[in-house]
Protein backbone atom coordinates (compact mmCIF):
# COMPACT_ATOMS: atom_id res chain seq x y z
CA UNK A 1 0.00 0.00 0.00
CA UNK A 2 2.73 2.45 0.99
CA UNK A 3 4.66 1.52 -2.09
CA UNK A 4 1.62 2.31 -4.17
CA UNK A 5 1.13 5.71 -2.59
CA UNK A 6 4.81 6.49 -3.09
CA UNK A 7 4.77 5.40 -6.69
CA UNK A 8 1.51 6.91 -7.78
CA UNK A 9 1.38 10.03 -5.70
CA UNK A 10 4.59 11.09 -4.05
CA UNK A 11 6.80 10.46 -7.07
CA UNK A 12 4.44 12.22 -9.50
CA UNK A 13 4.03 15.11 -7.08
CA UNK A 14 7.77 15.58 -6.72
CA UNK A 15 8.24 15.25 -10.44
CA UNK A 16 5.56 17.82 -11.07
CA UNK A 17 7.06 20.21 -8.54
CA UNK A 18 10.46 19.81 -10.16
CA UNK A 19 9.06 20.55 -13.58
CA UNK A 20 7.30 23.59 -12.19
CA UNK A 21 10.38 24.96 -10.46
CA UNK A 22 12.43 24.31 -13.56
CA UNK A 23 9.95 26.08 -15.83
CA UNK A 24 9.64 28.90 -13.35
CA UNK A 25 13.35 29.63 -13.44
CA UNK A 26 13.49 29.17 -17.15
CA UNK A 27 10.67 31.48 -18.16
CA UNK A 28 8.65 33.14 -15.50
CA UNK A 29 11.41 34.81 -13.53
CA UNK A 30 12.68 36.31 -16.78
CA UNK A 31 9.30 37.71 -17.58
CA UNK A 32 9.09 39.29 -14.19
CA UNK A 33 12.58 40.73 -14.35
CA UNK A 34 11.97 42.17 -17.77
CA UNK A 35 8.71 43.75 -16.93
CA UNK A 36 9.33 45.11 -13.51
CA UNK A 37 12.11 47.49 -12.86
CA UNK A 38 12.45 48.47 -9.29
CA UNK A 39 11.86 52.19 -9.14
CA UNK A 40 12.32 54.39 -6.12
CA UNK A 41 9.15 55.71 -4.54
CA UNK A 42 7.86 58.41 -6.80
CA UNK A 43 5.69 61.26 -5.73
CA UNK A 44 3.27 62.80 -8.17
CA UNK A 45 2.30 66.33 -7.46
CA UNK A 46 -1.19 67.36 -8.42
CA UNK A 47 -1.65 71.06 -8.22
CA UNK A 48 -4.68 73.17 -8.89
CA UNK A 49 -6.87 76.02 -7.83
CA UNK A 50 -10.14 75.50 -6.03
CA UNK A 51 -12.98 76.58 -8.31
CA UNK A 52 -16.18 75.04 -7.04
CA UNK A 53 -17.98 76.50 -4.03
CA UNK A 54 -21.47 75.12 -4.58
CA UNK A 55 -23.38 72.19 -6.00
CA UNK A 56 -22.50 68.53 -5.81
CA UNK A 57 -20.56 65.69 -7.35
CA UNK A 58 -22.42 62.39 -7.67
CA UNK A 59 -19.16 60.54 -7.47
CA UNK A 60 -15.46 61.27 -7.77
CA UNK A 61 -14.85 59.40 -10.98
CA UNK A 62 -17.17 60.96 -13.53
CA UNK A 63 -15.34 64.26 -13.95
CA UNK A 64 -11.60 64.81 -13.70
CA UNK A 65 -11.52 67.65 -11.24
CA UNK A 66 -14.01 66.11 -8.75
CA UNK A 67 -11.19 64.49 -6.82
CA UNK A 68 -9.31 67.75 -6.53
CA UNK A 69 -12.35 69.82 -5.59
CA UNK A 70 -13.20 67.33 -2.89
CA UNK A 71 -9.76 67.56 -1.30
CA UNK A 72 -9.89 71.34 -1.57
CA UNK A 73 -13.30 71.43 0.06
CA UNK A 74 -12.03 69.37 2.98
CA UNK A 75 -8.93 71.52 3.26
CA UNK A 76 -10.80 74.82 3.15
CA UNK A 77 -11.74 76.18 6.56
CA UNK A 78 -14.55 78.18 5.04
CA UNK A 79 -16.21 75.50 3.00
CA UNK A 80 -18.74 73.04 4.28
CA UNK A 81 -18.62 69.53 2.81
CA UNK A 82 -21.82 67.47 2.73
CA UNK A 83 -21.72 63.72 2.42
CA UNK A 84 -24.87 61.87 1.54
CA UNK A 85 -26.49 59.47 -0.84
CA UNK A 86 -29.62 59.34 -2.96
CA UNK A 87 -31.31 62.32 -1.32
CA UNK A 88 -28.73 64.48 -3.14
CA UNK A 89 -30.98 65.60 -5.96
CA UNK A 90 -30.91 68.58 -8.28
CA UNK A 91 -33.61 70.51 -6.46
CA UNK A 92 -32.76 74.16 -5.86
CA UNK A 93 -33.63 73.72 -2.17
CA UNK A 94 -30.83 71.26 -1.47
CA UNK A 95 -28.35 72.73 0.99
CA UNK A 96 -25.46 72.76 -1.47
CA UNK A 97 -27.55 74.82 -3.89
CA UNK A 98 -29.74 76.85 -1.62
CA UNK A 99 -27.23 78.20 0.88
CA UNK A 100 -24.67 79.22 -1.78
CA UNK A 101 -27.41 80.88 -3.83
CA UNK A 102 -29.14 82.76 -1.05
CA UNK A 103 -26.30 83.39 1.40
CA UNK A 104 -23.24 82.91 -0.75
CA UNK A 105 -22.00 80.24 1.66
CA UNK A 106 -19.45 77.72 0.38
CA UNK A 107 -21.07 74.29 0.37
CA UNK A 108 -20.11 71.22 -1.66
CA UNK A 109 -22.12 67.97 -1.71
CA UNK A 110 -20.60 64.57 -2.48
CA UNK A 111 -22.62 61.48 -3.26
CA UNK A 112 -25.48 59.74 -4.93
CA UNK A 113 -27.26 56.44 -4.20
CA UNK A 114 -25.00 53.83 -2.56
CA UNK A 115 -22.51 56.40 -1.24
CA UNK A 116 -22.33 54.92 2.26
CA UNK A 117 -20.18 54.98 5.38
CA UNK A 118 -17.23 53.03 4.00
CA UNK A 119 -16.85 55.20 0.90
CA UNK A 120 -17.08 58.31 3.04
CA UNK A 121 -14.41 56.95 5.34
CA UNK A 122 -12.09 56.24 2.41
CA UNK A 123 -12.52 59.75 1.01
CA UNK A 124 -11.76 61.29 4.37
CA UNK A 125 -8.76 59.01 4.92
CA UNK A 126 -7.42 60.09 1.55
CA UNK A 127 -7.64 63.67 2.76
CA UNK A 128 -5.84 62.80 5.97
CA UNK A 129 -3.31 65.66 5.78
CA UNK A 130 -6.12 68.14 5.01
CA UNK A 131 -9.00 67.00 7.18
CA UNK A 132 -8.10 68.16 10.68
CA UNK A 133 -11.01 70.27 12.07
CA UNK A 134 -12.77 70.27 8.72
CA UNK A 135 -16.45 71.28 8.59
CA UNK A 136 -18.53 68.39 7.44
CA UNK A 137 -22.16 67.18 7.49
CA UNK A 138 -23.14 63.55 7.11
CA UNK A 139 -26.60 62.59 5.83
CA UNK A 140 -27.45 59.19 7.24
CA UNK A 141 -30.11 57.18 5.40
CA UNK A 142 -31.57 54.41 7.54
CA UNK A 143 -31.99 52.43 4.34
CA UNK A 144 -28.20 51.86 4.24
CA UNK A 145 -28.53 49.52 7.17
CA UNK A 146 -30.71 47.21 5.15
CA UNK A 147 -27.93 46.72 2.60
CA UNK A 148 -24.91 44.49 2.90
CA UNK A 149 -22.70 47.48 3.39
CA UNK A 150 -21.02 49.37 0.58
CA UNK A 151 -21.27 47.51 -2.71
CA UNK A 152 -18.22 47.03 -4.86
CA UNK A 153 -19.45 49.26 -7.65
CA UNK A 154 -19.97 52.18 -5.30
CA UNK A 155 -16.60 51.40 -3.75
CA UNK A 156 -14.66 51.92 -6.99
CA UNK A 157 -16.52 55.11 -7.74
CA UNK A 158 -15.19 56.77 -4.60
CA UNK A 159 -12.06 54.80 -3.69
CA UNK A 160 -10.09 56.38 -6.51
CA UNK A 161 -6.61 54.98 -7.33
CA UNK A 162 -4.98 58.21 -6.15
CA UNK A 163 -6.90 57.99 -2.89
CA UNK A 164 -5.94 54.40 -2.20
CA UNK A 165 -2.31 55.13 -3.00
CA UNK A 166 -2.34 58.08 -0.68
CA UNK A 167 -3.87 56.11 2.19
CA UNK A 168 -1.49 53.16 1.85
CA UNK A 169 1.56 55.42 1.73
CA UNK A 170 0.51 57.59 4.66
CA UNK A 171 2.20 56.09 7.68
CA UNK A 172 0.38 58.42 10.05
CA UNK A 173 -2.93 56.70 9.31
CA UNK A 174 -3.57 53.96 11.85
CA UNK A 175 -3.22 50.40 10.57
CA UNK A 176 -6.69 49.62 11.89
CA UNK A 177 -8.31 51.51 9.01
CA UNK A 178 -6.03 49.96 6.43
CA UNK A 179 -6.70 46.49 7.74
CA UNK A 180 -10.44 47.14 7.66
CA UNK A 181 -10.23 48.20 4.03
CA UNK A 182 -8.10 45.15 3.29
CA UNK A 183 -10.76 42.92 4.75
CA UNK A 184 -13.43 44.61 2.66
CA UNK A 185 -11.44 44.20 -0.56
CA UNK A 186 -10.56 40.63 0.31
CA UNK A 187 -14.17 39.68 0.96
CA UNK A 188 -15.37 41.09 -2.37
CA UNK A 189 -12.41 40.08 -4.46
CA UNK A 190 -14.61 38.15 -6.86
CA UNK A 191 -16.63 41.23 -7.62
CA UNK A 192 -13.70 43.26 -8.92
CA UNK A 193 -12.40 43.09 -12.41
CA UNK A 194 -8.77 42.69 -11.43
CA UNK A 195 -7.02 44.28 -8.45
CA UNK A 196 -4.71 47.23 -8.37
CA UNK A 197 -1.41 47.20 -6.52
CA UNK A 198 -2.75 49.37 -3.75
CA UNK A 199 -5.75 47.08 -3.29
CA UNK A 200 -3.36 44.15 -3.03
CA UNK A 201 -1.40 46.03 -0.40
CA UNK A 202 -4.49 46.64 1.70
CA UNK A 203 -5.34 42.96 1.51
CA UNK A 204 -1.82 42.07 2.53
CA UNK A 205 -2.14 44.14 5.67
CA UNK A 206 -5.36 42.34 6.49
CA UNK A 207 -3.97 38.88 5.75
CA UNK A 208 -0.71 39.47 7.59
CA UNK A 209 -2.65 40.39 10.70
CA UNK A 210 -4.67 37.22 10.71
CA UNK A 211 -3.31 35.07 13.43
CA UNK A 212 -6.30 33.10 14.53
CA UNK A 213 -5.90 30.03 12.35
CA UNK A 214 -3.54 28.41 9.92
CA UNK A 215 -4.60 30.40 6.98
CA UNK A 216 -4.49 29.33 3.39
CA UNK A 217 -4.41 33.00 2.56
CA UNK A 218 -1.27 33.46 4.56
CA UNK A 219 0.37 30.60 2.74
CA UNK A 220 -0.57 32.24 -0.51
CA UNK A 221 0.89 35.49 0.67
CA UNK A 222 4.17 33.77 1.40
CA UNK A 223 4.31 32.32 -2.08
CA UNK A 224 3.54 35.76 -3.44
CA UNK A 225 6.35 37.24 -1.41
CA UNK A 226 8.69 34.89 -3.15
CA UNK A 227 7.67 36.21 -6.50
CA UNK A 228 10.49 38.72 -6.51
CA UNK A 229 8.52 41.29 -4.66
CA UNK A 230 6.41 42.23 -7.64
CA UNK A 231 3.13 41.81 -5.91
CA UNK A 232 3.93 41.89 -2.27
CA UNK A 233 5.99 45.05 -2.33
CA UNK A 234 4.29 47.02 -5.05
CA UNK A 235 5.66 50.36 -6.02
CA UNK A 236 2.81 52.64 -5.36
CA UNK A 237 3.36 56.20 -6.25
CA UNK A 238 2.66 58.77 -3.65
CA UNK A 239 0.23 61.57 -4.33
CA UNK A 240 0.68 65.07 -3.08
CA UNK A 241 -1.97 67.73 -3.60
CA UNK A 242 -0.86 71.34 -3.90
CA UNK A 243 -4.09 73.26 -3.75
CA UNK A 244 -4.82 76.89 -3.90
CA UNK A 245 -7.83 77.50 -1.66
CA UNK A 246 -10.17 80.28 -2.69
CA UNK A 247 -13.03 81.96 -0.84
CA UNK A 248 -16.27 83.71 -1.58
CA UNK A 249 -17.78 86.53 0.44
CA UNK A 250 -20.82 85.68 2.55
CA UNK A 251 -23.80 87.93 2.47
CA UNK A 252 -26.16 88.25 5.35
CA UNK A 253 -29.59 88.30 3.76
CA UNK A 254 -32.22 87.39 6.29
CA UNK A 255 -34.21 84.31 5.41
CA UNK A 256 -37.41 83.27 7.09
CA UNK A 257 -36.79 79.52 6.80
CA UNK A 258 -39.99 78.54 8.58
CA UNK A 259 -42.40 80.37 6.36
CA UNK A 260 -40.64 79.30 3.17
CA UNK A 261 -40.65 75.73 4.44
CA UNK A 262 -44.35 75.85 5.37
CA UNK A 263 -45.27 77.10 1.91
CA UNK A 264 -43.25 74.33 0.28
CA UNK A 265 -44.92 71.75 2.49
CA UNK A 266 -48.44 72.93 1.59
CA UNK A 267 -47.55 73.04 -2.08
CA UNK A 268 -46.17 69.50 -1.93
CA UNK A 269 -49.24 68.09 -0.18
CA UNK A 270 -51.72 69.82 -2.43
CA UNK A 271 -49.93 68.57 -5.55
CA UNK A 272 -50.41 64.91 -4.68
CA UNK A 273 -53.32 63.33 -6.55
CA UNK A 274 -52.54 59.64 -6.61
CA UNK A 275 -52.16 58.63 -3.00
CA UNK A 276 -52.61 59.45 0.63
CA UNK A 277 -49.20 58.29 1.82
CA UNK A 278 -47.46 61.58 0.99
CA UNK A 279 -45.46 60.36 -1.98
CA UNK A 280 -45.24 62.54 -5.06
CA UNK A 281 -47.28 61.35 -8.04
CA UNK A 282 -44.35 60.61 -10.36
CA UNK A 283 -42.57 58.40 -7.90
CA UNK A 284 -45.78 56.75 -6.80
CA UNK A 285 -46.86 55.82 -10.30
CA UNK A 286 -43.40 54.68 -11.29
CA UNK A 287 -42.38 52.59 -8.30
CA UNK A 288 -45.25 52.09 -5.92
CA UNK A 289 -48.32 51.43 -8.00
CA UNK A 290 -47.64 47.69 -7.74
CA UNK A 291 -46.13 47.65 -4.31
CA UNK A 292 -48.03 49.75 -1.87
CA UNK A 293 -46.09 48.92 1.25
CA UNK A 294 -42.88 47.38 2.42
CA UNK A 295 -41.25 46.08 5.54
CA UNK A 296 -37.79 46.68 6.98
CA UNK A 297 -35.43 44.11 8.39
CA UNK A 298 -34.21 44.91 11.84
CA UNK A 299 -30.44 45.38 11.60
CA UNK A 300 -28.38 43.33 14.00
CA UNK A 301 -26.04 45.88 15.54
CA UNK A 302 -23.36 43.30 16.18
CA UNK A 303 -23.08 42.02 12.63
CA UNK A 304 -24.57 44.67 10.36
CA UNK A 305 -21.78 45.56 7.98
CA UNK A 306 -23.00 49.09 7.40
CA UNK A 307 -23.20 49.75 11.11
CA UNK A 308 -19.64 48.52 11.62
CA UNK A 309 -18.52 50.77 8.76
CA UNK A 310 -20.36 53.66 10.32
CA UNK A 311 -18.77 53.13 13.72
CA UNK A 312 -15.33 53.18 12.19
CA UNK A 313 -16.18 56.32 10.23
CA UNK A 314 -17.33 57.93 13.46
CA UNK A 315 -14.13 56.91 15.20
CA UNK A 316 -12.10 58.59 12.50
CA UNK A 317 -14.23 61.73 12.55
CA UNK A 318 -13.60 62.01 16.29
CA UNK A 319 -9.92 61.22 15.95
CA UNK A 320 -9.50 64.04 13.44
CA UNK A 321 -11.53 66.45 15.57
CA UNK A 322 -13.75 67.33 12.65
CA UNK A 323 -16.46 69.90 13.07
CA UNK A 324 -18.96 67.29 12.07
CA UNK A 325 -22.72 67.09 12.32
CA UNK A 326 -25.16 64.39 11.34
CA UNK A 327 -28.57 64.53 9.73
CA UNK A 328 -30.58 61.35 10.28
CA UNK A 329 -33.18 60.97 7.56
CA UNK A 330 -36.59 59.44 8.21
CA UNK A 331 -38.32 56.70 6.28
CA UNK A 332 -41.91 57.24 5.23
CA UNK A 333 -43.88 55.31 7.88
CA UNK A 334 -46.97 55.21 5.69
CA UNK A 335 -45.03 53.03 3.28
CA UNK A 336 -42.69 51.15 5.61
CA UNK A 337 -45.05 49.38 7.97
CA UNK A 338 -42.58 48.59 10.73
CA UNK A 339 -40.36 51.65 11.04
CA UNK A 340 -40.09 50.96 14.78
CA UNK A 341 -37.60 48.12 14.15
CA UNK A 342 -34.99 50.76 13.32
CA UNK A 343 -35.34 52.52 16.67
CA UNK A 344 -32.58 50.55 18.44
CA UNK A 345 -30.24 51.46 15.60
CA UNK A 346 -31.18 55.14 15.64
CA UNK A 347 -30.89 55.23 19.42
CA UNK A 348 -27.50 53.62 19.27
CA UNK A 349 -26.30 56.15 16.68
CA UNK A 350 -27.66 58.99 18.80
CA UNK A 351 -25.97 57.64 21.91
CA UNK A 352 -22.64 57.40 20.13
CA UNK A 353 -22.92 60.95 18.87
CA UNK A 354 -23.98 62.34 22.23
CA UNK A 355 -21.08 60.62 23.94
CA UNK A 356 -18.70 62.69 21.83
CA UNK A 357 -20.73 65.89 21.82
CA UNK A 358 -21.36 65.67 18.13
CA UNK A 359 -24.43 67.62 17.04
CA UNK A 360 -27.12 65.82 15.11
CA UNK A 361 -30.56 66.50 13.70
CA UNK A 362 -32.72 63.42 13.98
CA UNK A 363 -35.75 63.37 11.71
CA UNK A 364 -36.43 59.66 12.07
CA UNK A 365 -39.93 58.79 13.27
CA UNK A 366 -41.39 55.43 14.06
CA UNK A 367 -45.09 56.06 13.45
CA UNK A 368 -47.34 57.92 11.09
CA UNK A 369 -48.59 60.27 13.81
CA UNK A 370 -45.23 61.91 14.37
CA UNK A 371 -44.40 62.00 10.67
CA UNK A 372 -44.29 65.48 9.20
CA UNK A 373 -45.70 65.15 5.65
CA UNK A 374 -43.49 66.65 2.98
CA UNK A 375 -40.24 66.04 4.83
CA UNK A 376 -39.74 63.31 2.30
CA UNK A 377 -40.56 63.58 -1.33
CA UNK A 378 -41.31 59.89 -1.54
CA UNK A 379 -40.44 56.99 0.72
CA UNK A 380 -36.88 57.91 1.68
CA UNK A 381 -35.61 61.05 -0.08
CA UNK A 382 -35.86 64.60 1.22
CA UNK A 383 -38.47 66.83 -0.34
CA UNK A 384 -38.00 70.56 -0.60
CA UNK A 385 -39.68 71.02 2.77
CA UNK A 386 -37.24 68.61 4.35
CA UNK A 387 -34.30 70.36 2.76
CA UNK A 388 -35.46 73.71 4.10
CA UNK A 389 -35.53 72.29 7.62
CA UNK A 390 -32.00 71.01 7.11
CA UNK A 391 -30.90 74.35 5.67
CA UNK A 392 -32.17 76.12 8.74
CA UNK A 393 -30.39 73.68 11.02
CA UNK A 394 -27.08 73.95 9.19
CA UNK A 395 -27.24 77.72 8.98
CA UNK A 396 -27.79 78.03 12.70
CA UNK A 397 -25.21 75.38 13.59
CA UNK A 398 -22.32 76.49 11.41
CA UNK A 399 -23.07 80.14 10.81
CA UNK A 400 -24.94 81.06 13.98
CA UNK A 401 -28.02 82.44 12.20
CA UNK A 402 -31.57 81.77 13.25
Amino acid at each position, binding site marked *: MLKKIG*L*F*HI*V*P*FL*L*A*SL*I*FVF*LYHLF*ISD*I*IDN*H*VNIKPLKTTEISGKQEVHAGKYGNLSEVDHAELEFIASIKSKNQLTLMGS*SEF*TYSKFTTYKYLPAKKNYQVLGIG*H*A*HHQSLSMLIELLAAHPENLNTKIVFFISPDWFNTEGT*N*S*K*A*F*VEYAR*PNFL*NRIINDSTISLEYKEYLGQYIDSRL*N*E*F*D*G*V*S*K*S*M*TSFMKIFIDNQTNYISLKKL*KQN*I*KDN*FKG*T*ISKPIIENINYKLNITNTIKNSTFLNYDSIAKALQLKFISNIQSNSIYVNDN*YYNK*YLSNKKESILNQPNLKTNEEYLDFKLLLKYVIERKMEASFIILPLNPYYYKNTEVFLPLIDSIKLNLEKHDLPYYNLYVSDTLSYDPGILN*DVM*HFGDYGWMKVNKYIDSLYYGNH
Partner: protein
Amino acid sequence: MGTTKKIIQNTLIYFLLIIGYVYLYVININTVLNPSQEEVVKSKIDFVYQQF
Protein backbone atom coordinates in the same frame (compact mmCIF):
# COMPACT_ATOMS: atom_id res chain seq x y z
CA MET B 1 2.89 -0.73 -18.49
CA GLY B 2 -0.13 0.38 -16.51
CA THR B 3 2.20 1.65 -13.82
CA THR B 4 4.13 3.99 -16.10
CA LYS B 5 0.94 5.30 -17.59
CA LYS B 6 -0.52 5.97 -14.17
CA ILE B 7 2.66 7.73 -13.01
CA ILE B 8 2.69 9.96 -16.07
CA GLN B 9 -0.99 10.71 -15.68
CA ASN B 10 -0.63 11.65 -12.04
CA THR B 11 2.48 13.72 -12.73
CA LEU B 12 0.44 15.68 -15.25
CA ILE B 13 -2.42 16.13 -12.79
CA TYR B 14 -0.10 17.34 -10.03
CA PHE B 15 1.75 19.63 -12.41
CA LEU B 16 -1.46 21.24 -13.64
CA LEU B 17 -2.68 21.56 -10.07
CA ILE B 18 0.48 23.34 -8.97
CA ILE B 19 0.76 25.65 -11.93
CA GLY B 20 -2.98 26.33 -11.96
CA TYR B 21 -3.05 27.09 -8.27
CA VAL B 22 -0.12 29.47 -8.50
CA TYR B 23 -1.42 31.24 -11.60
CA LEU B 24 -5.08 31.43 -10.72
CA TYR B 25 -5.09 31.85 -6.99
CA VAL B 26 -1.69 33.04 -5.81
CA ILE B 27 -0.53 35.59 -8.29
CA ASN B 28 -2.55 37.66 -10.62
CA ILE B 29 -0.73 36.82 -13.80
CA ASN B 30 -2.07 39.94 -15.53
CA THR B 31 -0.36 42.16 -12.99
CA VAL B 32 2.89 40.30 -13.47
CA LEU B 33 2.78 40.57 -17.23
CA ASN B 34 1.44 44.12 -17.40
CA PRO B 35 2.56 45.85 -14.24
CA SER B 36 2.15 49.27 -15.78
CA GLN B 37 -1.50 48.76 -16.50
CA GLU B 38 -4.07 51.30 -15.48
CA GLU B 39 -4.66 51.31 -11.76
CA VAL B 40 -8.38 51.92 -12.16
CA VAL B 41 -10.33 48.87 -11.11
CA LYS B 42 -13.88 48.25 -12.19
CA SER B 43 -16.56 46.40 -10.35
CA LYS B 44 -18.13 43.43 -12.05
CA ILE B 45 -21.39 44.06 -10.31
CA ASP B 46 -23.80 45.89 -12.54
CA PHE B 47 -25.86 48.02 -10.29
CA VAL B 48 -28.83 49.99 -11.47
CA TYR B 49 -28.99 53.15 -9.48
CA GLN B 50 -32.54 53.19 -8.35
CA GLN B 51 -34.77 56.18 -8.62
CA PHE B 52 -32.26 58.85 -9.52
